[in-house]
């Protein structure tokens, strides 16, 4: 019977603490703003703003001697949605435009283009790209070669011939056949935004109590350390799940990312991720002695690692081994893999389970360290 009352008492104590945290949240509106306004604001801004699909690339066309051959070639660019071609009279002018950043690439057809076209070694088409943004430069040269091949095919057809290409590449992209970058960027953004929210919600919580001395007051109550941690976790978990539901609905309905896995997998794994992110925030606020240091650590340890090391944009497999090992410490890494799979591929357990395990390990490490550190400080 005594065990029973203890359990009942524990539930009551926990309820009291959760209520106190909720009151604190309601009276300082910044937590509510973090949980609900931040996902809307950030997802709107980034969902529309972040895209790797290059269109309307400004391109300089220099045709030194216009004729029928060159006209059919330049027409290919004018129809393309990838380019905004601008005609320049000579190469020097176009090069100046490239230097000033007005165009990203120059296509030059030399004076004797038509003559060389009918000779054995063929006519060169010169392409100069601004290589500073190497990715865009590669995309441009891919597009130009595509336009060039189409032009060749068309020209061969008009002569009644077939173009002789030994091996044709046939590509099929699974899960995202149009290679719409938004489809993988939006799930990644949800992961980054939830990392921020989770850490921001709790990063200052424990340090504030230590700094103000109210932690000592909490500790002389019958509450145990695990109850204190749970009491801090539950309200922010509920807030965070609210924000998460918002973010996922925006991804599905506003940005029309297909959801091929099931909703319950999405929410179960998200809940686990949220516990991990909140746990990291709690750990930061316990280890840092002051809100000041906790704030600094939160600034350093959350956003940039989640942005650069999660596989959100940069392929983890292409990083050097040491850096790949470090990415295993980033909770967002597991969540990005889960989200991209659940959204675009379906319930692929061979991807989901290892990543769930990774999240679970991180969550228990964060919460365990919080518990140990908080206890040690008491002595």
């Amino acid at each position, binding site marked *: 019977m005594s065990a029973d009352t203890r359990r009942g008492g524990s539930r009551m104590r926990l309820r009291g603490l959760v209520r106190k945290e909720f009151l604190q949240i309601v009276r300082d509106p*910044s937590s509510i703003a973090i949980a609900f306004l931040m996902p809307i604001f950030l997802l709107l801004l980034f969902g529309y703003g972040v895209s790797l699909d290059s269109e309307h690339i400004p391109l300089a066309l220099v045709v030194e001697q216009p004729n029928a051959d060159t006209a059919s070639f330049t027409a290919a660019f004018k129809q393309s949605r990838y380019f905004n071609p601008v005609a320049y009279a000579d190469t020097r002018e176009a090069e100046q435009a490239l*230097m000033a950043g007005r165009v990203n690439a120059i296509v030059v057809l030399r004076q004797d283009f038509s003559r060389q076209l009918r000779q054995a070694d063929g006519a060169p088409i010169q392409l100069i790209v*601004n290589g*500073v943004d190497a990715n865009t430069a590669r995309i441009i040269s891919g597009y130009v070669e595509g336009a060039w091949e189409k032009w060749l095919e068309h020209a061969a057809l008009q002569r009644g011939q077939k173009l*002789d290409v030994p*091996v044709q590449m046939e590509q099929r992209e699974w899960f995202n056949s149009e290679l719409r970058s938004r489809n*993988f960027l939006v799930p990644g953004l949800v992961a980054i935004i939830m990392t921020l929210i989770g850490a921001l919600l709790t990063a200052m919580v424990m340090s504030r109590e230590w700094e103000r001395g109210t932690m000592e007051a909490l500790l002389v109550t019958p509450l145990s350390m695990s109850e204190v941690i749970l009491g801090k976790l539950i309200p922010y978990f509920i807030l965070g799940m609210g924000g998460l539901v918002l973010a996922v609905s925006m991804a599905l309905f506003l940005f029309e990312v297909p959801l091929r896995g099931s909703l319950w997998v999405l929410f179960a794994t998200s809940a686990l991720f949220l516990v991990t992110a909140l746990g990291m925030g709690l750990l930061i606020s316990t280890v840092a002695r002051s*809100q000041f240091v906790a704030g600094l650590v939160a600034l350093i340890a959350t956003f940039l690692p989640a942005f650069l090391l999660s596989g959100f944009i940069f392929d983890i497999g292409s990083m050097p081994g040491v850096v790949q090992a470090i990415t295993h410490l980033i909770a967002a890494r597991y969540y990005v893999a889960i989200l991209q799979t659940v959204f675009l591929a379906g319930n692929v357990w*061979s991807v989901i389970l290892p990543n769930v395990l990774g999240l679970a390990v991180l969550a228990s490490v964060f919460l365990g360290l919080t518990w140990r550190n908080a206890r040690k400080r008491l002595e």
Partner: protein
Amino acid sequence: MLGRIFALVVKEFLTLLKDKRSRLVLIVPPLIQLMVFGYAATFDLKNVPFAVYNEDRGFASRELLAAFDGSPSFTRVAQVTHESEIAPLIDAKQVLMVVHVGPNFSADLLSGRPVALQVIVDGRNSNTAMLAINDVSVMVDRFNREWAASHDGNLPPSHVETRAWFNPNLESRWFFLPGIVGILTLLVTMLVTALSVAREREQGTFDQLLVTPLRPVEILIGKTLPGFLIGLAEASVITLAAVFWFKVPLLGSLLTLYTGIVLFLLSGVGVGLMISSFAVTQQQGLLGAFIFMVPSIILSGFATPIRNMPVLVQDITLLNPMRYFLLVLRGVFLEGLPFHLLIQHFWPMALIGAVALSVAGWLFRHRMY
């Protein structure tokens, strides 16, 4: 007046550096992050796992596949013998791509019939998928040219000669490292400034500061200088590391580079102080720092080009000092742009800095409880 400001600056440095933890937080993480991010941020594929499904027994397919094995972008990790094995490999992310050669590949090729090379890619990360397809198509083009040359086929009547200016090997690390210089500089200025006023307000010492003989302008200078100096020092260290460790070419002049750094620091410190003096608690200060820092990095053109954004978002980026700083950094590092071509990016940073600093100074006096 100088003496008073000096005293305030000393006090600011003391609060930042006297606590071992906050000293550690200011110096160590940015340097670690430089190393980690410097290697992480690249769009160049390396050792991407792929599988081969070869139904052909001829030498031609072997010759073509040898090109894949020789490429640094790809590593062959699996051999597929039946079509049903493809899906599990890709689904589980064990391979990014499966290359499928049909049964009559070599025979058809020899008899001059067109043949197809099928490439199946995991499109979950569409950018990586596109990069892989680009790399494969370069290899196929090269194979075609060599094949046509050695089997007296028809070469196409023209060819594209591509030259990349400023970055001849198209190393994407050259593009990202100057960006990382910018990001970490922003991070450091935010660390130093975002909580500096908010903390004093929460602890009540800011009111004490206001009743000292210090004028608001002097407080402003005293609060600006530490962030500015620490930011300047860290930006210099990061620049040195980019040049000497990561071997990014620095073609432009140091004067131009430092003009950009100084103006960016002014705007960063200004916005940080503005946020900090607007906040009543440290939690609000931290929130403000995030709300400023996250969009200013994601919408700076660091990873995804500004040109791809909708016009409205492009207009919003005009308020982002980071946008200008990245253009300056890349221009000075890789293109060697002269001073006068960068003035168009200098003045907006100066303007943002001036406005933000004045608002911060005004808020010192007018936001009191």
